[in-house]
């Protein structure tokens, strides 16, 4: 029931409070794309981001801090690398399912027709984005001991994500120096690459390869961190 509410109402809420207000302020993007269409992938990213936080909190941080099943996971005859991959893959699959449903819900709200290709391309880039986000949340789950600290960091990270990664307004609105830094942040790259592909039909591989490379390195980092934390 909670999941259903989350999938149905959160996209609607995001649409009402972000799109309906902002589209009167920003009618079209710098590339002349209607704002509601331009922000559509960003809303999906924001939605999948919130589901990813929740899932990893439930399956890793919660297990660890409340001593639920975490010993069992670490005592299974699997390497820590496998453990990290398993948590990432299962949480990404769950998030992508929610994101897909959210896309369907959101498509009823926006005025411009959503191209059929969006339903294939957005989940692929969302997966790339979630691979990075998942690693960040796993690192946080390993390093923090208290729920309050976890929530504190998540709030800060959420604010940064909303305002600093081009989810609801373009990074070009920032002063040029800051804009350049934010555009080259691996977390912003999947969304920039996705919008380029959707709205200009231009696929720049650097927006895919850099986040992917950072994610892979981060998986190894998380593997080392969890080994150190568990003293195993």
């Amino acid at each position: 029931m909670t999941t259903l509410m989350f999938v149905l109402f959160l996209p609607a809420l995001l649409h009402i409070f972000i799109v309906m207000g902002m589209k009167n302020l920003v009618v079209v993007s710098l590339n002349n794309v209607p704002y509601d269409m331009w922000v559509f992938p960003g809303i999906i990213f924001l939605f999948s981001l919130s589901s990813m936080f929740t899932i990893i909190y439930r399956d890793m941080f919660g297990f660890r801090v409340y001593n639920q099943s975490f010993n069992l996971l670490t005592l299974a005859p699997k390497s820590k690398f496998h453990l990290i991959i398993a948590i990432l893959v299962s949480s990404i699959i769950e998030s992508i399912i929610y994101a897909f449903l959210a896309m369907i819900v959101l498509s009823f709200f926006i005025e411009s027709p959503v191209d059929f290709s969006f339903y294939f391309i957005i989940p692929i880039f969302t997966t790339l984005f979630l691979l990075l986000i998942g690693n960040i949340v796993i690192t946080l789950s390993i390093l923090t001991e208290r729920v309050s600290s976890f929530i504190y960091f998540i709030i800060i990270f959420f604010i940064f994500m909303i305002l600093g990664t081009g989810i609801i307004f373009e990074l070009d609105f920032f002063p040029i120096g800051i804009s350049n830094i934010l555009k080259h942040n691996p977390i912003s790259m999947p969304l920039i690459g996705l919008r380029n592909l959707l709205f200009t039909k231009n696929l720049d591989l650097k927006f895919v390869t850099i986040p992917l490379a950072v994610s892979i390195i981060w998986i190894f980092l998380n593997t080392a961190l969890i080994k150190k934390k568990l003293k195993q």
Partner: protein
Amino acid sequence: MEASITLKKVGKLINDKTILAGLTFGIEKGSLVAIIGDNEAGKSMLLRVISCLEYQEYGQVFINGLDSKKRRIEILPKISYVSHELDLDPWLTLEENIQFAGMLYDIDTETINTRLTQYARELHLTRYLKKLVKNISPGIIRKGIIIRSLIHDPEILIMDDPTAFMDAESYRQTWDMLLRMKGEKTILYVSQSLKEVEDAHDRILVLEDGKISLDGSLDKLLGGTFEFHQFQIEFENLPDDLFQKLSKLPKVKNASKIGQSIHFYGRERGVFFDVLKNAVSATMKDISVKKLGLQDLMDAKYAKDGIH
């Protein structure tokens, strides 16, 4: 007999505090070994180290001859660890929790379900299997955790207080099952209940400040440490001079006067008759003779100072 678990000079430090200090011992395959000791003696840490949940700072642990640090992945399917905590996922049913554990060990669904059904029947847990763990009482969850630990058919069971939270019936069912497995599986457990340890052991390890202070069967430990009996005689009136006279008898040890009673220890039951012979002038109300047990062994005064 073949060793199932071998420790060689195993030491564990936490923040420069020694938790385990150079432990060396072996545990035979199929044996039932209990570990007892005071709080902070290092019992739980010893189990965590043997079960590969934490690595030792120095020394080596071998499971079936395999080094636990170097060949961890090979060792893990052979062992199973039951934590002191109720560590099931509260948002899954008892059955789902156990099935999930089986899947982690790549056990096929049919085998998982067969074992689950068999153990659940044995522990009278069948009617709780479909319930969410958050709605089940701790004693029942504990039985579920024991089934979860058996689902991959480990050779070695390592259990931290296996019957904690259990009522008398669950306690009996659990030990009936574990004692049936003795011989096929090596069972190593920690318990705070000395009665439980007295009833279920081939060997007892007494841990004190991270070291093994005593090691052997209950009879061996009591025999080796002090083969004493405890006596108590209650008089209608026990004058001081009579107490002094009785306490100075040659074989009477550690005599004390509590109210109108004399308590003392003696190596043989014959001491009792000597005392009776010397106390015949006074009127006696009650007498008791008790062979010392694990509780007496663990009693700090006697465990550390002995009987003089």
